């Protein structure tokens, strides 16, 4: 690789690595695995010499990052939401930090969603991606992406409301 190409590639990696990381992390929920995916994605781009001729850089990167992350995903990652619910109502040392606790609960509930709902929602949390780009990444129509993301949000709200009700009931009993 010529020196100029190397500098350009380095700049490209610095510019997009965070984005690729977030896409990978949205799928894998593990920083180390996401780091591996980032490396794999950029090495693949370097090998194919495709990084200089991308039309829609973000959509392309999101697609290959998502595929690489799916390959890294263990076969059975889907955990039952009910198990998480039981764990989440157990008293924790961070109960006073309500916001942090709330975030953890939301993330656990998202992790417990079926993959067909979780992935559109997870990719939609990556701010830079539009529903059209997510549709390209997942290979499904844009309308389906929106429907599934909305359905996932609705499910999460219901679960959170149920959790809140259980917590109040546990407090007053």
């Amino acid at each position, binding site marked *: 690789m010529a020196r100029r190409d190397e500098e350009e590639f380095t700049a490209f990696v610095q510019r997009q690595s965070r984005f690729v990381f977030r896409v990978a992390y949205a799928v894998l929920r593990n920083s180390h695995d*996401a780091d591996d995916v980032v490396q794999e994605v950029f090495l693949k781009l370097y090998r194919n010499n495709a990084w200089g001729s991308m039309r829609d850089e973000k959509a392309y990167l999101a697609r290959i990052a998502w595929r690489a992350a799916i390959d890294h995903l263990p076969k059975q990652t889907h955990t039952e939401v009910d198990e998480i619910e039981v764990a989440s109502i157990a008293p924790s040392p961070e109960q006073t930090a309500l916001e942090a606790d709330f975030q953890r609960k939301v993330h656990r509930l998202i992790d417990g969603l079926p993959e067909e709902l979780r992935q559109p929602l*997870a990719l939609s*949390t990556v701010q830079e991606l539009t529903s059209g780009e997510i549709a390209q990444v997942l290979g499904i129509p844009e309308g389906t992406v929106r429907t599934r993301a909305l359905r996932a949000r609705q499910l999460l709200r219901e679960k959170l409301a149920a959790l809140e009700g259980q917590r109040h009931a546990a407090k007053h009993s």
Partner: protein
Amino acid sequence: MPQSTPDFEREFERALAAYADPNDAGYPQVLAARVMAEVRMRQRKRRLWLGISAAAPLLGCMLVAAVLYFGRSEPQHREAKVVSIPAIPHAERAPEPPAYAKARPKLVRGARAPNARPRLPKLDQFPAPAPMSEQEKLLVQFVRRTPPSTQRFVVKMQEQSDEPLRIAELSIPDLDSKTQP
């Protein structure tokens, strides 16, 4: 959990936004450094393999050339011996085979056909009288030119030279202690 609906929605959106943005996410510079280190390592490996793949055929060719060179030298001597042996007269030999066919010379059967050899006339005396040698010719000339007396003298001298030599007996006196220094 936030109690009011606006608070809930705000916290809910914040929690969603944080889903793919962990606190321990890699920094772009660190990620880029990792990737570039891997890229450079692969470049080095690639160069190494390119060098090996370029050198391997060259070494192979050199090996084959060496085997051919040293393997051929011995058969060439054998070939020379085989070619020099044939008993066919020079005039009747088959035409020289081309160089590429010399490795395994073939005898042409047609050249050994019995009809091709001319028959020699049958002789009355066996073995056939051979012509005189140079020494015999000189002797005949000497006999013709020199008179009989000279011839007899020469014969006599030759006979004398054939007789055994007679040497007088030697008398060696005993060593005496007085004669010694």
